[in-house]
């Protein structure tokens, strides 16, 4: 059984006079440990698709089944718990809590899960070491570079021990060196922890490293191919 099964997914926005068909009849399966990029031009439906997979948005029709659980019929109150326990999020703008240190940012998601203080601290420090920030544990986001902030965001996404990580344009705000370094880290985590990564991106640097690329256009999958990632430059 695939980790994520997407079947005949449609998402229509009726907020304007003309309905906007953001996702059209999308069907695909995502297996464990995939390192997959959803690509396409702006407005192609990448973010909408990721939002539906992440339980942040509901499909108009069709369904998303994760580990045998249908998210499309799950009430909002349960979706919050589901997101907390099963999905890690990495955002384009890092979106860390500015008043917290790197450690506290990573710890916070575990606090929401009810993990005890000692374990929270140990796991947060361990994760920050793994993402190469052992020296910046007590730094606040404003004291970190963009690349470092995104590493903290990755550590935060992994802190809840999710089934998979959704990364929406994770490298869009990073310079080449930081982007490559972040992708190295994600690849390593993908290999080491059998962690599934799903990116939405139109960054060529990400596409080069992905092992599967799903291309969207006008909300439809126009191409779904398994690729051999380029070797690191």
């Amino acid at each position, binding site marked *: 059984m695939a980790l994520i099964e997407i079947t005949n997914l449609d998402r229509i926005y009726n907020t304007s006079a003309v309905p906007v068909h953001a996702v059209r009849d999308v069907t695909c399966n995502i297996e464990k440990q995939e390192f997959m990029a959803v690509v396409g031009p702006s407005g192609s439906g990448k*973010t909408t698709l990721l*939002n539906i997979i*992440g339980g*942040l*948005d509901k499909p108009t029709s069709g369904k998303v089944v994760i580990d045998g659980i249908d998210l499309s019929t799950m009430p909002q*109150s349960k979706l*919050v*718990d589901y*997101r*907390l*326990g099963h999905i890690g*999020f990495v*955002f384009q*703008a890092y*979106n860390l*809590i*500015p*008043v*917290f240190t790197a450690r*506290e940012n990573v*710890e*916070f*998601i575990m*606090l*929401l*899960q009810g993990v005890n203080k000692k374990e929270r601290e140990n796991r947060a420090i361990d994760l920050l070491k793994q993402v190469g920030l052992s020296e910046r544990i007590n730094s606040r986001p404003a004291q970190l570079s963009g690349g470092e902030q995104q590493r903290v965001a990755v550590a*935060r996404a992994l802190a*809840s021990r999710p089934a998979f990580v959704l990364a929406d344009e994770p490298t869009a705000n990073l310079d080449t060196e930081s982007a490559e370094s972040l992708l190295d880290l994600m690849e390593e985590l993908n290999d080491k922890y059998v962690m599934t990564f799903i990116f939405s991106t139109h960054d060529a640097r990400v596409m080069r490293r992905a092992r599967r690329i799903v291309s969207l256009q006008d909300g439809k999958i126009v191409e779904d191919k398994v690729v051999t990632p380029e070797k690191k430059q």
Partner: protein
Amino acid sequence: MLLSLAWKNIWRNKKRSLIIIAAITFGLWGGIFSSAIMVGMMESMVETAISRDLSHIQIHKKDYDKDKDVRNFIPDGINVLDNIRSVKGIRAASGRTKIIGMAASPSSSYGVEIIGIVPEDSKQVTDIYAKLIEGSYFKSDRKNPILIGRKLAERLNLKLRSKVVLSFQNLEGGIAYIACRVVGIFKTNSSQFDEMNVYVAQGDMFRILESDPIIHEIAIRSESVETIDLVRDNLLILFSNLQVESWKDMAPELAYLSQTTGIYMYIFVGIILFALLFGITNTMLMSVVDRIRELGVLIAIGMKKSKVFIMIVLESVLLSLTGGFCGIGVGVLTIAYYGNNGIDLTAISGSLESFGATTILYPFLPAMMYIILTIMIVIAANIAALLPAWKATHLVPSEAIRTY
């Protein structure tokens, strides 16, 4: 950690938070200090009335207040007075012989209440002796010494050592006269009292009345303010044939004012907090609007809306309590300073004297007020947080995340 996050969030925009904290501080300080002045004034009026003439408890013959005739004295008053002095909880008691009469000087005359006292006994229950501005407290070789108020002295054009003739009804229904010599002029906080009351030695009154000692009123001081009602109840049992009243029974208007001052105080501070509530709501709303993306992220990663709600309420409560404690702190310091040194209101002494308040005011606020005030602040903060918290919990995370 949620509490820590809420506290840190307050200080993300220092200027904005400090402005609302300053508003709460000054608002509460004003409310607390004004309330302390009101309570201080009220306490002063009550204390003044008790010290001047009411004392804590008074005993009369039943229905004396309806007919203050000279013959309406307490039966066997001297014995009653002696018995009262041995009742537990009583610090001092003084018998008064009271007759309505007329005071006349060569230039004018005026209706007064003539109060016959044993000076040393009276000293134990009231403080007229301390209100003398001229002369002495019955320390005179002159025959028939009298203490009069300054207002009466002005009205009758009397000075120290002036002669004043008192006329009043005797026990047989005839008119008795006594020529007295002014040995002391007192001035209390009530010009009305000063104008209408004169003190003479009880012995002189008995001589003119040609009667055995008679007492119309027994003034009592209890050992403590807290036990007044208890002592009154005991006396009511012991002297069921007499009228036993506490100062609250005798001056219900003062008791009512004292009680309502507390209520007005809460209403007054409540209105201030209500006004501040809008400021807090505005600050919290701005804070939520500034953090829409962040709140969206928190909800997206799995923070329950109930926790987001609690976080916003905590921020509002912490912000309000910070301002509240600053306001209470400044208020306590101000009250402590003026409580010791007093506020000199001599400039408006005329109007204050007309309703029996002192010209030096000592602000005072009961400790319970501070506790209730803190509770009121927390309640106001919770109300102020409702709209911002509602807004925060109704964010759609997928849209909020993309807000810049």
